[in-house]
């Protein structure tokens, strides 16, 4: 009990010892993320103070932008996720968040949890629809478990 409490405090104070790109706040390899859905593995990882770490960003630039698919290392497992909120400065009318948020999904695009407990940007609706192909993974399932859009 006490141990877990200490660990929690530890997370709040320094989730990451150093910044790779402080001014840009880019989401790239080895960035720590915050899991915002209620999947079991995500909840446990956040409670233990071991937030997931990016080990691959699936795009050409290798820098994650809103709606991009990422591979994360979480509790010794590899899971896929979708970035649903970024710290980075965004375009006009696109919200900027205080943390880098991720929602865990499986290979078909189905979210592991069944509820997202933070607001997600409305532009994600269009981005995810564009990314969904008729035969590939269906990412729009993520939108249906969202509680709030900003």
């Amino acid at each position, binding site marked *: 009990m006490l141990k877990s409490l200490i660990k929690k405090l530890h997370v709040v104070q320094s989730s990451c010892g150093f910044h790779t790109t402080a001014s840009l706040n880019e989401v790239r390899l080895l960035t720590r993320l915050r899991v915002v859905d209620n999947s079991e593995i995500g909840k446990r990882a956040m409670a233990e103070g071991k937030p997931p770490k990016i080990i691959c960003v699936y795009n050409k630039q290798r820098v994650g932008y809103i709606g991009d698919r990422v591979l994360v290392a979480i509790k010794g497992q590899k899971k896929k996720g979708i970035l649903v909120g970024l710290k980075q400065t965004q375009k006009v009318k696109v*919200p900027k968040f205080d943390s880098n948020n991720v929602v865990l999904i499986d290979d078909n695009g189905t979210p592991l949890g069944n509820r997202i407990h933070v607001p997600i940007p409305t532009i994600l609706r269009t981005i995810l629809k564009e990314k969904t192909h008729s035969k590939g993974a269906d990412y729009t399932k993520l939108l249906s478990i969202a509680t709030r859009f900003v």
Partner: protein
Amino acid sequence: MALAIRRYNDILCATKWFIRRDCRVFSTLPETVEQYPKPQVVKEQRSSRIRANASNPKLAYRQIYPEFLPDPNPKWRNSLREKLERADMLKRRSQIDIPEFYVGSILAVTVADPHAQGKVTKFVGICIERKGCGLRAEFTLRNVVDHQGVEVRYDLYDPTVQKIQVLRLEKRLDDKLFYLRDALPEYSTFAFDMDPEILPEGTPVPVNAVQVILKPRPWLERWERQELKGVANIEEHLKEKDRVRRELRATPWEKYDLMKTYRKTIPVEDQNKIWAEVNSQLEQLQLTRKKMSRKRIFNTPKVQLG
């Protein structure tokens, strides 16, 4: 050593300034030169603002409509472009009521959004920054929704903006409120169904003197070096090293740098021309806004009944 040199420089600068000022008394230069940059300083005391309001309404415009003044960089100045830009801004203002607001005011912005379900999104938050001149003017709203800090940037003259409503008109102690990102979340939490607070006509804009409490370090910026007035507990998180560094990096001579203020501001003569050009239309817009607000007050009970 470096500290000593810096201090020495500091004293040197100060003495230089004093000498220059005293010499001016004996010189034959007209006194008006000294008065020249004074009215351009954008930040002003509240009391003086009221006085300015009473004597010259144009001076108050500088704070209500800061985006009407062009960028002071001489590389980008052009009188015709500025004139066309102002005309476009007034055209947009005749379509949508853009109210008077300041950094620290709480706004509700309704935007037409092709991505949203109802094609409209509304966001409520505190204005933490206002910048840009002309049609480039933009402002940033911050709120904490479901324990998650969210910031949205809006263009002031964007035609997709449906409505800008001021829920609480007030100022804060600082020009930019970026420190709210590191403050406790209750300082930037506002309900989306907040009711607008109506100030009686003619009252000056109140200054909210609240001092926020910062979370422990690490911080996003070095707040201790920015001479913030709206932060209460900055000293308790500092180490000796930070205090020394703050002393080293301090630039107390900058407020005496007249040339710097001159370069950063539009001269009074230019401002007078600009305000004279837009004055009549702005007054008309204000009148229509007053009429509308009266109507709204009259209508509200009916809406509630319905």
